[in-house]
């Protein structure tokens, strides 16, 4: 599969670095744009959920003239699903950032040979990680919002409404990031075809 007229046979790593750092083709530009958007989405999802906290004081009973109050705190660390969500989005944003840097300045000299084949594999892993985190948080949020009458678990979102709202916002950001990451992964695999010399 010829890569372009007038190209001499150079060392594979050299050619890979040149092709990868050139942003003249349209696909490269689209990829960079998508990676920036995906980075924004995953970073915002991780940050919104990471700073999600709500404290509410409710009056439980009134004994005589003194009121008995209970303090209800909701933090994301209370639920392992949300902890996994934050960690997964953190890893995904790190990956997006790294890939963004690599698409601008090319892979480091040590990895030049394996970079064209390693990047789609890393993109695949990114898809798996983000999908796992987003869906775990989504189902846990559904449990918190609706409760489960069979297990005698009451819904808690009516008491800690802004926690639930912010959590929902983080999940939406993560799902948008997931769609973008799937598109990035597919483009990354399609882009491999021009490296195939067999």
């Amino acid at each position, binding site marked *: 599969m010829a890569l372009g007229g007038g190209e001499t046979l150079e060392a*594979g*790593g050299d*050619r*890979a670095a040149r092709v990868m750092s050139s942003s003249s083709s349209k696909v490269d530009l689209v990829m960079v744009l998508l990676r920036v958007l995906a980075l924004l989405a995953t970073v915002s999802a991780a940050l919104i959920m990471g700073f999600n906290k709500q404290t509410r004081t409710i009056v439980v009973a009134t004994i005589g003239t003194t009121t008995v109050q209970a303090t209800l*705190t*909701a933090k994301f660390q*209370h*639920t*392992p*699903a949300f902890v*996994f969500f934050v960690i997964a989005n953190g890893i995904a944003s790190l990956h997006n950032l790294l890939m963004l840097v690599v698409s601008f300045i090319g892979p480091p000299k040590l990895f030049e*040979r394996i970079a*064209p*084949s390693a990047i*789609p*594999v890393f993109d*695949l892993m990114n*898809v*798996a990680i983000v*999908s*796992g*985190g*987003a*869906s*775990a*948080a*989504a*189902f*846990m949020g*559904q*449990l*918190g919002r609706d409760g*489960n009458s*069979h*297990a*005698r*678990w*009451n819904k*808690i979102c009516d008491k800690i409404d802004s926690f639930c709202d912010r959590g929902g916002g983080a999940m939406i950001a993560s799902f948008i990031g997931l769609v973008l990451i*799937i598109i990035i*992964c*597919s483009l990354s*695999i399609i882009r*491999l*075809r021009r*490296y*195939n*010399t*067999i």
Partner: protein
Amino acid sequence: MILSKRILPIFLLRLLALGATVSATVLMVTSHDSALVFNIKFEAKYTNSPTFKYFILINAIASGYTLILLFLSCKSSFGHLILALDLIVTLLLESSISACIAIGQVGKKGNSHAGWLPICGQVPKFCDHVTGAMIAGFAAALAYFLILVYSLHNLISLFTLNT
């Protein structure tokens, strides 16, 4: 590092994934237990939670897809379509097992901050079945990820780029 027999590893992996997805579906569907707490019958079935229903749906779809592809694995004319479908199925399997583990953890340990008591003490058979289904589902997700990387390698010969 060219693999001389490219079809055999994928075939074995698909066989393993078929076994894992079928057993995950069957184990989750047959999970059923009931307990008598203060004269109230407390029944636990997979239909009680939308997460488990989603898990069964995804694993059933994945096992049907794997079965079809087992017979189609000799032909490689649809390579790109199969790669795209593999990506989608891996994604769905991964998300279903992740959600199940999240809900299962709440069922086993409860959540003291939300006032949710663990239910595994009252319905141990249900919990064991669900745990087995989740192990099978995890094996299926792992097998499908390997299948995905192998499909990619078959299509584009990953390890011999730029030589």
